[in-house]
C-alpha cells in the first residue's frame, strides 16, 4: 500500500490547479530555534480560500495566506521572514521563540 502522505501538499495543490483554481504554495526554507515545522513543510492556498498543510503551528498561516493572495495576483514570488512575536498581539510571529523563512510561489 502506498502511504497517504499527509505532507504531500504539493499533490493537493496540483490537483486544485488542475481543477482550475488559482494556487500558491508556501514552503518553509529555513528555520532557527524551536520552530514547529521543519524546512520543506508546505502550505497551499487558493484564490477561492482553500487551504492545505501548514508552515508553523498555526501562528503565521494567516499572514502567509495573505501574502499568497498577492503572489497569486502578481505572479511574483516572495521570501517572507517571521521572527519571534512579542507582547503586541497585532504583530505576526512565532510565540515558540523560533524564526522561519517562507518562500511563496504561484503554481503557473
Amino acid at each position, binding site marked *: *500500500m*502506498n502511504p497517504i502522505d499527509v505532507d504531500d501538499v504539493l499533490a493537493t495543490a496540483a490537483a486544485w490547479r488542475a481543477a482550475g483554481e488559482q494556487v500558491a504554495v508556501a514552503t518553509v526554507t529555513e528555520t532557527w530555534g524551536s520552530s514547529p515545522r521543519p524546512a520543506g513543510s508546505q502550505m497551499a492556498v487558493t484564490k477561492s480560500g482553500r487551504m492545505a498543510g501548514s508552515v508553523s503551528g498555526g501562528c503565521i498561516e494567516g499572514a502567509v495566506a495573505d501574502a499568497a493572495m498577492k503572489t497569486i495576483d502578481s505572479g511574483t514570488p516572495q521570501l517572507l521572514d517571521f521572527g519571534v512575536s512579542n507582547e503586541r498581539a497585532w504583530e505576526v510571529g512565532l510565540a515558540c521563540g523560533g524564526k522561519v523563512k517562507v*518562500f511563496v510561489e504561484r*503554481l503557473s
Partner: protein
Amino acid sequence: MTPDILAALEQAKRDKRPIVLATRLPSGEQQLLPDPSAPDDLNAAAQRALDRDESGTVKLGDTDWFLHAYNPPLRLIVVGAVHVAQALVPFAVPCGFSVIIVDPRRSFASDERFPGVEISTDWPDEAMDKFAPDSRTAVVTLTHDPKLDDPALDRALHSQAFYIGALGSRRTHAARLGRLRELGHGDDALSRIQGPVGLNIEAVTAPEIALSIMAEIVGVRRNAPLPPKAKL
C-alpha cells in the same frame, strides 16, 4: 513553479526516484536535481540533502538555494500476516511507510485481510532477498514461528534495515537470539533486534501493540533516546 517542473517532480515521486527541487532565493528560478548540466557543487549539495533526508537552504558562491529533498517512501516489511499486522497497517501508512506483508500461509496473507497492501506469499528469506531491505526499511517479524521469523531476521541482520523488531516474550526472544547466534550473528548484530518489540506501554490489544511498535520505529528513525529493554 512551472507546469513542466511540477509534472517532472510528480513523475519522479510516482517512479519512487529520489529527486531534489532546487529553488534560487529569493528570485524563485527552479530546477530539478541531479542534472548533469547543473554545477557540480549544486548536484553534490542535492545528494547530501537526499542522503540526510533533509530539506534546507544552502549558500553556494553568492547564491542561496533552497533544496527540497523528495525521497521515495520508507518501507515497512512485516513478516506474519497476523492480527497485529492488520492493526499495524493503518498506523504505518500515514507515517509515510509503504507496507509489504510477507507470509507463505495464504489463509493469513489474503487480500481480504489486507486490502490494498502489497502481499508476498514467498518464504520469508526469499521475500527478503527480493525486497532487499535498505537503510530506509524497517522489518518487523510477528509470526511467533521460528521457521518463519528466523530466516527473515537472519536476512534483516545482513541488511542495512534501520529498524528490526521481533514480537515475542523475553523468554521467546532469548531463545531466538540463541538460534540466531548459531547462524553466526554476534552480540553487536543481535543488539539491532528490538525484542520484545515495541515501546513498553503495557499494550494489550492488537492496535495497542501496533501503536507501541510504530512508536518505536519512529523513535529509532528520529534518533530518540529510547529506554533500554528489560534484561533478558
